[in-house]
């Protein structure tokens, strides 16, 4: 049980479980996504089954880097259980969460 990553256009698709054991792979995938230099990038979580606080920290760091460059990162297609965790941690007040993948 681990996670897989794929980048298509401006979107990173995360599939599976991200915990402290494999969060650095998520960080690397986000680095690749941010290096594309797009004004808006998205992280599609529709196939993500679990994100631990380590994974949430990676997302928050990537969001802050995008903001610092005057760019945007958003999370899309977030499964209800993960959305509830994001809300519980207050992430919804900081990171953009949208229902569908934004068009470029």
């Amino acid at each position, binding site marked *: 049980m681990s996670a897989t990553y794929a980048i298509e256009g401006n979107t990173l698709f995360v599939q599976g479980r991200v*915990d402290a054991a494999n969060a650095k792979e998520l960080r690397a995938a986000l680095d690749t996504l941010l290096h594309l230099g797009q004004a808006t990038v998205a992280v599609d979580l529709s196939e993500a089954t679990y994100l*631990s606080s380590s994974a949430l920290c990676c997302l*928050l760091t990537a969001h802050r880097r995008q903001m610092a460059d005057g760019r945007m990162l958003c999370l899309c297609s977030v499964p209800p259980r993960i959305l509830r965790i994001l809300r519980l941690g207050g992430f919804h007040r900081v990171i953009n969460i949208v229902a569908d993948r934004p068009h470029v």
Partner: protein
Amino acid sequence: MSALASVSSTDDAVSELCVRSQASNLASIAEFVSGRARQSGMDENTVFDVQMAVDEACTNIIEHAYAGRGDGEVRICCYVRDADFVVRISDDGMPFDPDAVPEPRIGAPIEERDIGGLGLFFMRQLMDRVEFRAGDLSGNMVEMTKAIRGRR
């Protein structure tokens, strides 16, 4: 799972998993706890919450109590007490003072370390009760409980 990993049931009610303090064991721990929580009659959302609280607790043990040392033991014990699902996690690492951990500041604009303590925050949010006991010289024990709703 490492060679140390063992699952034992002393009776019908108590099951224990013992693994090495390695992050690669977190997925096995999640599977073990989810299975036991599900057996207790919890709905899937509650199983998810318990699994996350345990994942965060074990991550803290691996990263902080054992400071990344992979040869320690993490023991996870689950049982049902009245209408509650109880998880007790113990280690032989450095004593940990939960009160010394600052509250996470998600909205803080600076560095990643501002969001330290997030694991502990989630444990307290997701479970009904979280109680720590540090050993005198080494080791910690945390007991967490969650009401089993919808139990017949």
